[in-house]
């Protein structure tokens, strides 16, 4: 029987075929789907995030690891749903209105999934109203806003204002993107800023009260 640590290593290395095979073997040997996710895949993606932050791996390797995780989750999600097991936290993510750039947003979406958040990805060019509606519908803990363009930073500011004044209890709004800084986050009243996809996981965990 394979070890959960074998799965962790496979997903961290982006070995898609091995990740799927090990997931199947662990399930067949009686490991619970929840343990496969929480003790196999999540630690693997945490390694990916750490290595990314340390510039030991880069965007292509992170994408490949995320794909391996995604393939494994295809096997696991029906089993988790059948057992009524859901991720503890929910995050909404999207690129702000007027902005169509999504590389960074997609990376963070993948990494949040890899940290066992339920992630609702609203795509690009997302209005403040859409973020708000999704946050309400899914009882989100976190909303993540991305912007690449200087011309869409005002849209981000307005979206943060609307979300923060919505009265949604405990909702945290975090922002990121190439021109975004911690100073800008402070100025517009966001709850946090992350410079990269690895840091975005730490930020989200800290804001929901989990140790990062």
């Amino acid at each position, binding site marked *: 029987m394979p070890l959960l640590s074998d799965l962790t290593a496979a997903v961290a290395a*982006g070995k898609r075929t091995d990740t799927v095979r090990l997931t199947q073997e662990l399930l067949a040997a009686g490991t619970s789907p929840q343990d496969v996710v929480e003790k196999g895949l999540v630690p693997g993606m945490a390694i990916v995030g750490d290595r*990314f932050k340390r*510039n030991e*791996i*880069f*965007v*292509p*390797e992170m*994408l*490949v690891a995320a*794909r391996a995780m995604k393939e494994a989750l295809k096997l696991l999600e029906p089993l988790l749903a059948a057992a009524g097991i859901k991720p503890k936290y929910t995050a909404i993510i999207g690129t702000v*209105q*007027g*902005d*169509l*750039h999504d*590389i*960074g947003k*997609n990376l963070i979406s993948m990494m949040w999934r890899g940290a066992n958040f339920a992630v609702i990805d609203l795509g*690009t*060019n997302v209005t403040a109203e859409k973020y708000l509606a999704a946050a309400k519908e899914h009882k989100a803990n976190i909303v993540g806003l991305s912007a690449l*363009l*200087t*011309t*869409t930073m005002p*849209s981000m500011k307005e979206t943060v204002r609307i979300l923060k004044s919505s009265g949604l209890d405990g909702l945290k709004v975090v922002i990121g993107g*190439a*021109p975004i*800084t911690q100073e800008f986050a402070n100025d517009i009243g966001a709850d946090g800023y992350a*410079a*990269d996809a690895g840091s975005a996981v730490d930020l989200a965990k800290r804001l929901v009260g989990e140790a990062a």
Partner: protein
Amino acid sequence: MTSREKVRLALDHKPGPVPVDFGSTPVTGIHVSCVAALREHFGLDRHPVRVWEPFQMLGEIEDDLSIALGADCTGVAGRGTLFGFPREGWREWRAPWGQVMLVPEGFRPRAEPAGGLHLFPQGDGAARPSGHMPAGGYFFDAIIRQEPIDEDRLDPADNCEEFTPLSADDIGHWRRVLAGARGNGRAIVGGMGGTAFGDIALIPAVGLRNPRGIRDVSEWYVSLVERRPYVHRVFSRQCEVALKNLEVFRDLAGDAIDVLVVCGTDFGTQASQFCSPETFDDLFAPYYRIINEWVHRNTSWKTFKHSCGAVRPLIGRFIDVGFDILNPVQCSATDMDPVRLKRDFGDRLVFWGGGVDTQHTLPFGTPAEVRTQVTERLRAFSPGGGFVFNTIHNIQAMTPVANIVAMVQAVRDFNGAGA
């Protein structure tokens, strides 16, 4: 001293007045809204500005504005736009922000249901749209048109459809633009096209009606790891075509060109790099080396590499593969401090850019803050030559004209002070 002489001094790492570029390339330009505002500010002839690069909506900087801005470079570009239609048949068009401008005949946007605009490859409204300007936007972005990928049938030729030998029409165009550019006293910066390996802005191929191969941005990045032999075959084939075109282009341009824009592939993110140094060495370096060596062996041109972001760990490699010039020198990215860049690489690499931050200071700062930063950058980069002043990438839409003017004046004052 002519503008061209100023630029040549800087390119040869010799001290002199700091030369300036505004608008000679698609990565050193000015959004059409700002070009119009600058024309008005300087009291120049009032007429609609031409959009010479419709993807980023860059405005043409005509001779009178070049003079007002103190620009020392003239750009010469190929016949076609990124969308595959030629820069000809100019007509008036009103942009969503109300500005009337001139666009090429093939620029025929169509309203999309969400309130934005779609643009079509080669101006063909019957094709699937390839560009999208969202409502409230000022630029187009590529619409990803990725056919299902059959790993067993991937053919490098599919990813090379856009790399073709220069046609008779292209050659005629180049003869005209090169003749027009000679004699204005400025340095000439040329972009022949087809020498950018894996430029993520070009991968979606907005100029093709039905792009094949790997055209999705994430798929392309994944391909650098999972389909590396395929990417090698794409680059190899592209390189063959580029070398043949370079021979033709050399015969057309000769010594008229001072700088060849080789590649705009971004290797940097805001905080890191898009690929490892090992990936650069294996996948990109061999082809860059071939192109740069050919240019240096057969011409007097300097080669220009554009890469946004935190590329410091790769700069030594850019130099090793033969690039002479780095742009846009994104000092706001991690570990891109101007003083350290100049100290560590300034004797071997020309910095073309770095003049002012277009993410923060230029669009959102005060004229005084712009002036301060511009002066600091001039002091950092200019000693001993090896510096051409330009903003860090294009001046973005709706940047206050007072800030642009403050930048221009700061450069003028610095040069006037005999620095």
